[in-house]
C-alpha cells in the first residue's frame, strides 16, 4: 500500500478544443488516477485565458485545475501521458499536502497565540464589534496616497 498524498494538476489545453475533447481529456486523467487507486477531489475549470507569452503560436489556452489524491507513481504516469497528448500545451503537477498542512498549522498557532495574548490582557478572546470597526477605519486611513503625514502610527 503506497502512501497517498495530495497533488495539484494544472493543464492548458489548446484554445480550439471542443467540449467533448476537454471531457475526454478529463476522462483520461480520471482513468489514470483511478488505476493507481487515487481520487479526484475537485476539478476547477478556469476556462479560456490569455497566455502571458506564446506557446506554439497560441495566444490563449483553456486552463483546468484538478486536485488529486494518490500515490507518487500516479504523478509520473500523468506527467508522461500529458506530455504525449497534442491537445495539452502545458501541464504542471505539484504536491500540495505538505505546504497546506504547514499553512493551516501556522494559522491555528497564530490564532491561539492571539487569543492567549488577549486573555492575558484581560480582553475577550474575540475582538469586539467596536474594535473591528475602529481597526477598519485605521486601515482605510492608512491607504492614503503614500502613508505620509498621518498620526502617530
Amino acid at each position, binding site marked *: 500500500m503506497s502512501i497517498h498524498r495530495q497533488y495539484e494538476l494544472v493543464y492548458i489545453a489548446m484554445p480550439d478544443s471542443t467540449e467533448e475533447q476537454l471531457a475526454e481529456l478529463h476522462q483520461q486523467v480520471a482513468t489514470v488516477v483511478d488505476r493507481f487507486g487515487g481520487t479526484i477531489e475537485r476539478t476547477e475549470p478556469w476556462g479560456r485565458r490569455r*497566455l*502571458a507569452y506564446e506557446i506554439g503560436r497560441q495566444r490563449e*489556452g483553456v*486552463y483546468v485545475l484538478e486536485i488529486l489524491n494518490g500515490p507518487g507513481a500516479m504523478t509520473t504516469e500523468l506527467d508522461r501521458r500529458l506530455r504525449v497528448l497534442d491537445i495539452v500545451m*502545458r501541464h*504542471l503537477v*505539484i504536491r500540495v499536502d505538505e505546504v497546506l498542512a*504547514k499553512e493551516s498549522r501556522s494559522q491555528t498557532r*497564530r490564532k491561539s497565540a492571539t487569543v492567549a495574548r488577549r486573555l492575558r490582557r484581560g480582553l475577550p478572546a474575540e475582538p469586539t464589534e467596536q474594535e473591528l470597526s475602529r481597526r477598519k477605519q485605521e486601515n482605510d486611513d492608512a491607504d492614503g496616497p503614500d502613508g505620509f503625514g498621518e498620526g502617530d502610527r
Partner: protein
Amino acid sequence: MSDYDKDTRGGGGGRGAAKGKDDKDKAGRRGGFFRRRRVCKFCVEKIDYVSYKDVKVLTPFIPERGKIQPRRISGTCAKHQRALQTAIKRARTLALIPYVTD
C-alpha cells in the same frame, strides 16, 4: 481600557507616566524610525503559503521587465522571498506570468 490604548501608542509599556513625557517619547521615536521602512508584505498580511495561482498577489513583485524583484527593493523577508520565487517560477511555466517582456 482607554488607558491601555494610550500605552500601546506611546511605544514601550510602562512608560506613559506623565503626559509631557509621553509626547516627547513619541517625537523621539519619529526621529529614529525611518518612515519608509520596508516590511515584508506577506508577514504583514499573514500569508503563509504563496500560491502560484494568485496572479494578483504575484504581479506587484514583477516589474515591467518581468524579472523577480529583489528582496532589497521589495523588503520581503527571506522566508517569503523563497516562497515567492517558487510561486513565480511555477506561474511562469503555466504562462500566467511572462518570463520576459520588452
